[in-house]
């Protein structure tokens, strides 16, 4: 797998340097040097949202720092959780005196380090709460929903939580909105080709030329099944079959839909996938907001796509359509 990089050991540092040099709205700092935050922080008295995660998923996680999204992001090495220090940095950067919601994907390392960081932040009298992204239906059975991992759907949860914070809700209110948004969100992905960690000497999984992996993890963890590569329409149908019942979506319900590319899959294919998804939803009398389509949560050069659905009620719809702005997603 070829990469346009320099020393693999500098991958994360150079990526971050480029990111913040390109986007004046983002600043890099913290004691760890691994914390991206808003150059123009939210007004004092607004609840802050801190997030974090491993590198290799751009625009996730750092790209969603912005007005109406998150306030700060702790950045780990490729596919590793952020260190406790960078989590503390992010919590501090996100604190505007009204407490901080730690909102991140449910991964072991991330959880351990944010938990440590929260203990320390609380010594500094920063009130914290935690909501974990758990949208990946392939990572645990529905009965164990709280053990599921977070994948692309977390971007939708950022949007809802960010809007709740911007509205001026208190910490409990923002956490409740994030919890509700996460509970209403499900994702499933399909991988066609692997990616490779810059320091590794082999791709993170192998898959035959005519195969696809349904329900793989965003680090290339095995999925629910591996089968012959099928048509985009069949993949779309399979995804909807998994997701709609989980959310108990019925005629007349309204969804927010994210068709996400994992990295190497062309936009053309995402639109071909969306075409079927939109058609099927329309046939079933299910409404949707203008869909969000593109590379929002990636695994470097992994090929494939994921579908995320959020079932809306009036509150969530208002949060999802509120104005917001970050380098990779604007709603106006």
């Amino acid at each position, binding site marked *: 797998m070829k990469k346009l990089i320099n020393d693999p050991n500098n991958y994360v540092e150079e990526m971050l340097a480029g990111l913040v040099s390109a986007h004046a709205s983002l600043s890099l700092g913290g004691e*760890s040097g691994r914390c991206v935050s808003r150059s123009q922080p939210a007004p004092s008295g607004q609840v802050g949202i801190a997030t974090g995660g*491993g590198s290799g998923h751009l625009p996730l996680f750092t790209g969603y720092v912005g007005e109406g999204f998150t306030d700060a992001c*702790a950045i*780990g*090495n490729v*596919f*590793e*959780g*952020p*260190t*406790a*220090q*960078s*989590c503390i940095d992010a919590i501090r950067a996100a604190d505007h005196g009204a407490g901080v919601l730690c909102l991140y994907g449910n*991964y*072991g*390392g*991330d*959880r*351990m*380090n944010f*938990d*440590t960081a929260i203990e320390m932040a609380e010594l500094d009298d920063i009130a914290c709460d935690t909501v974990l992204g758990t949208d990946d239906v*392939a*990572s*645990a*059975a529905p009965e*164990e929903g709280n*053990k599921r*991992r977070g994948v692309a759907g977390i971007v939708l949860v950022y949007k809802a939580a960010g809007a709740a914070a911007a509205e001026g809700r208190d910490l409990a209110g923002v956490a409740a909105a994030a919890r509700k948004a996460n509970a209403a969100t499900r994702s499933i992905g399909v991988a066609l080709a692997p990616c490779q*960690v810059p*320091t*590794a000497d082999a791709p*993170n*999984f192998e898959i035959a030329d005519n195969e696809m992996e349904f329900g793989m*993890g965003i*680090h*290339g*963890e*095995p999925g*629910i099944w591996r089968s012959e590569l099928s048509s985009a329409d069949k993949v779309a149908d399979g995804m909807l079959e998994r997701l709609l019942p989980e959310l108990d979506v019925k005629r007349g319900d309204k969804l927010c839909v994210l068709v996400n590319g994992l990295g190497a899959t062309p936009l053309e294919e995402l639109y071909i996938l969306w075409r079927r998804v939109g058609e099927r939803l329309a046939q079933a009398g299910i409404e949707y907001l203008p869909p969000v389509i593109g590379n929002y949560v990636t695994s470097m050069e992994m090929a494939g796509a994921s579908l995320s659905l959020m079932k809306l009620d009036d509150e969530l719809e208002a949060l999802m359509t509120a104005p917001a702005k970050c380098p990779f997603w604007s709603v106006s």
Partner: protein
Amino acid sequence: MSIGPQAIATFLERLNENAAASEQALNAADARLGDGDTGSMLRRVMAAMAHAGAGGAETASDAAKRAAAAAMKETGSSLGSLVATAAMTLARKAKEIEASGRTPETADLPMIVEAIRDAISARGKASVGDKTVVDSFDYLTRYLAQGPVSLETAQRAANDALDQMRPMPCRIGRARMFAERSIGSDDPGMLAVAKLLD
């Protein structure tokens, strides 16, 4: 035998060598159901700890703290964070002993390893029986309590933990979804403990 900064540094160097030697084997073990990075991450973390200057510390607790800080700086991965927790627990326990006016010694190890087991279980929210490094440390705790307190005992404990847990399903992380597939395979973290002590 008393455990000073130099003993800790020597032990870290040993772990570092073993981590480097088993990098690919551990990656492969993790690739089966995980993301295949256990070995590479551990190599980096162990190198960072070995180069943290533990040997130059004044006390055992300070030596362990340097190692813990190096690990914490290097990674936020699951296993790496637990490694840092383990080192930090060693530092904390050593400090308690030093506060009582003596230096830590071999006889303290059963108590320290037990504290590590409890700390990483609390940190990772995994219990004995979930098929993680917590189980390795549970075996270590029990075998060292029985004695003799030696590397051989520790090796036996780590390997017995592997053998005993191999037929069990994994109950932590994404591998949980593939409980059947995890039966018969080694947990990469547990395998790492055995390889590091090798």
